[in-house]
């Protein structure tokens, strides 16, 4: 962060400031510093154990998937507030279909994913074709899916299906004696896929182009309508997948699961250096953002005496700091 305050005048510093990768680097170094702090402070409690690091992925895999979906939307300059509700709805739907209807998970999972993607598609369609602000449309989506959760059941449904149980307990061993859960592996696969799509496909270039300037993209002849709708579909799909992972993680469906998770997802994306105005950012930054938020939770757990609400306050402070950095960067670039 000291780079920002000192770097203005010199040409080298100026180039550094212009580099779009800077926020990702700042977040990554913040993660390293925080991790070093944790390692120093909780050495005696085994903080340096490789499993502590792997647990970040195990505990936040679903958030990573949701945040990757949100990255797509935010890169086009939109916003998706329905993430948390779609996750909650997916846990309910999965739990209900598996437990009350007796369907196997193999059948339920595609249904849940299709429902999430279709929800995203509908929201994208309304946003683009009827020119309503994404904020208000996805807000309606938030209400709608949370309401559907309650329509399925007001009570939480716990899943005792042996297949789900086995899947949730499966450990993927890693060299060094640590392990990852299935959900963590899936989230990393999603991350890799998103990285490939955003940086090596035409669709990815279109996403950045629309975020940079929708009008220019239109004048260049890019299929703006299809891309915008696709982006919300991707977000809906990712949210549903995150919901499935969350179901594995927590092994129940509850109408109040993942309330407010959209804020965590958006916060991860912002902390990861993606500009909320769209057009600039990296999905790797989102990974850094999720890891930083996850690390805050772990540190607070290790501290033991701090209460859970400090997580919220720390998230808020972090958001503030990173938005300030973004402001400084964009102001310099224009000026």
């Amino acid at each position, binding site marked *: 962060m000291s780079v920002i305050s000192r770097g203005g005048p010199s040409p080298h510093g100026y180039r550094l400031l212009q580099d779009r990768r800077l926020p990702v680097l700042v977040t990554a170094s913040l993660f390293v510093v925080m991790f070093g702090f944790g390692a120093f402070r909780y050495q005696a409690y085994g903080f340096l154990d490789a499993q502590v690091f792997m647990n970040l992925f195990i505990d936040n895999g679903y958030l990573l998937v949701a945040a990757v979906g949100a990255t797509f939307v935010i890169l086009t300059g939109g*916003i998706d507030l329905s993430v948390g509700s779609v996750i909650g709805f997916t846990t309910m739907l999965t739990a209900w279909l598996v437990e009350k209807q007796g369907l196997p998970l193999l059948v339920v999972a595609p249904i849940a994913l299709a429902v999430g993607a279709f929800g995203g598609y509908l929201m994208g369609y*309304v946003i683009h*074709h*009827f*020119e*309503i*602000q994404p*904020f*208000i*449309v996805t*807000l*309606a*989506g*938030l*209400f*709608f899916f*949370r*309401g*559907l959760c*309650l*329509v399925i059941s*007001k009570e939480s449904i716990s899943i005792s299906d042996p297949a789900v149980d086995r899947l949730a307990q499966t450990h993927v061993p890693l060299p060094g004696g640590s392990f990852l859960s299935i959900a963590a592996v899936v989230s990393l696969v999603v991350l890799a896929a998103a990285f490939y799509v955003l940086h090596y496909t035409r669709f990815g270039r279109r996403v950045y182009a629309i975020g940079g300037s*929708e*009008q220019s993209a*239109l*004048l260049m*002849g890019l299929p703006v309508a299809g891309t915008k709708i696709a982006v919300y579909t991707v977000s809906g799909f990712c949210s549903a997948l995150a919901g499935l992972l969350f179901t594995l993680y927590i092994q129940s469906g509850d*109408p109040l699961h993942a309330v407010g998770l959209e*804020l965590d997802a*958006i*916060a991860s994306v*912002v902390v990861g250096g993606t500009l*909320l*105005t769209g057009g600039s950012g990296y999905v790797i930054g989102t990974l850094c953002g999720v890891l930083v938020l996850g690390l805050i939770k772990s540190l607070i757990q290790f501290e033991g005496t701090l*209460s*859970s*609400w*400090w*997580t*919220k*306050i720390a*998230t*808020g*402070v972090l*958001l*503030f700091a990173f*938005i*300030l950095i973004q*402001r400084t960067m964009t*102001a310099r670039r224009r000026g």
Partner: protein
Amino acid sequence: MSLSSLWRAATQHRLFWPVAALIVLLLINVPFTPGFFEIHLKNGHLYGSLVSIVLFGSPLILVSIGMTLVIATGGIDLSVGAVVAISGALACLVVSKQADQNSVAGVLLSFGLALAAALVCGAWNGLLVARLGIQPIIATLILMVAGRGVAQLITGGQIITVNSDSYSLIGGGYWLTLPFSLFVVALVVVLSMVLTRRTALGLLVEAVGGNAEASRLAGIRSRRIKIMAYVFCGLCAGVAGLMISSNVSAADGNNAGLWIELDAILAVVIGGTSLTGGRFHLGGTIVGALIIQTLTTTIYTIGVPTQTNLVFKAVVVIIVCLLQSAAFREKAFGALTKRRNPARKDPGASVDAAPQLEVSP
């Protein structure tokens, strides 16, 4: 004036559709609750469904009025729910620490502290938006996330209960046979209407919302106007927080005012204020807030399972937004709505419409 032109004049009025929706919603209740419109006088208090709609709706009306002004400046305030929680938590904490919880001075002190906290929250939002130029959604998102944490910090993660008659007056008490909160709401409504419509302030707010840069060049201190709007919104949320906590005589940092920001934004949109800023209609907002409260009450009275409340709300939001969208009306009603207001201040629409013709094959 013929009947049809009178009808046209009435439907053209911007309050026509919201008021019509409110009346329809109220009428739906009649077959289910025979004495829906009756108001009784019991123990010197007025009772009745209409009274309770106003009583339970008053925090929402307050928050929505503040939200209207913020949206009119082209912003949005997501943090009102957190401010509601902070103000309620602080007030209950102060009252519960006192030896005599009924003392008027102590309750007034707690109000003062809570409102001061709400003021600070509003000023913080205003500074972020107006001074640092952060997008309003994100600037207020910070306080929305952190504010809940602060509220839980104040209550220590517990639900603080108070046992004070003077404290419960503002949210659940009666004065001159009417709910006391009604007077508070009336005061705020009259104050904001006079300030915005009898002085130049309302015009300035609309100018800033229409085009902040142009209004700044025209000599309006647009930053100051924006900060004032956020501070006012914070104050309204603070008063609403006092009402909500006093109504149940408890402060819950986690759940007080949960999702009230969404209801408030909804009320503003139903009331006909565009989210893009500029023109605002306080009267419409109040009707919008009453519609939402009536919707909730209706769902309870007609025996629809309460869990469908949210789905209902979502459907209503979508319908209202679709009806407000010019693109939808054109597609759905076609030639019926040819006479559209040409001076629509939606940059997206005008930008999109022209090039699309050239690009499409």
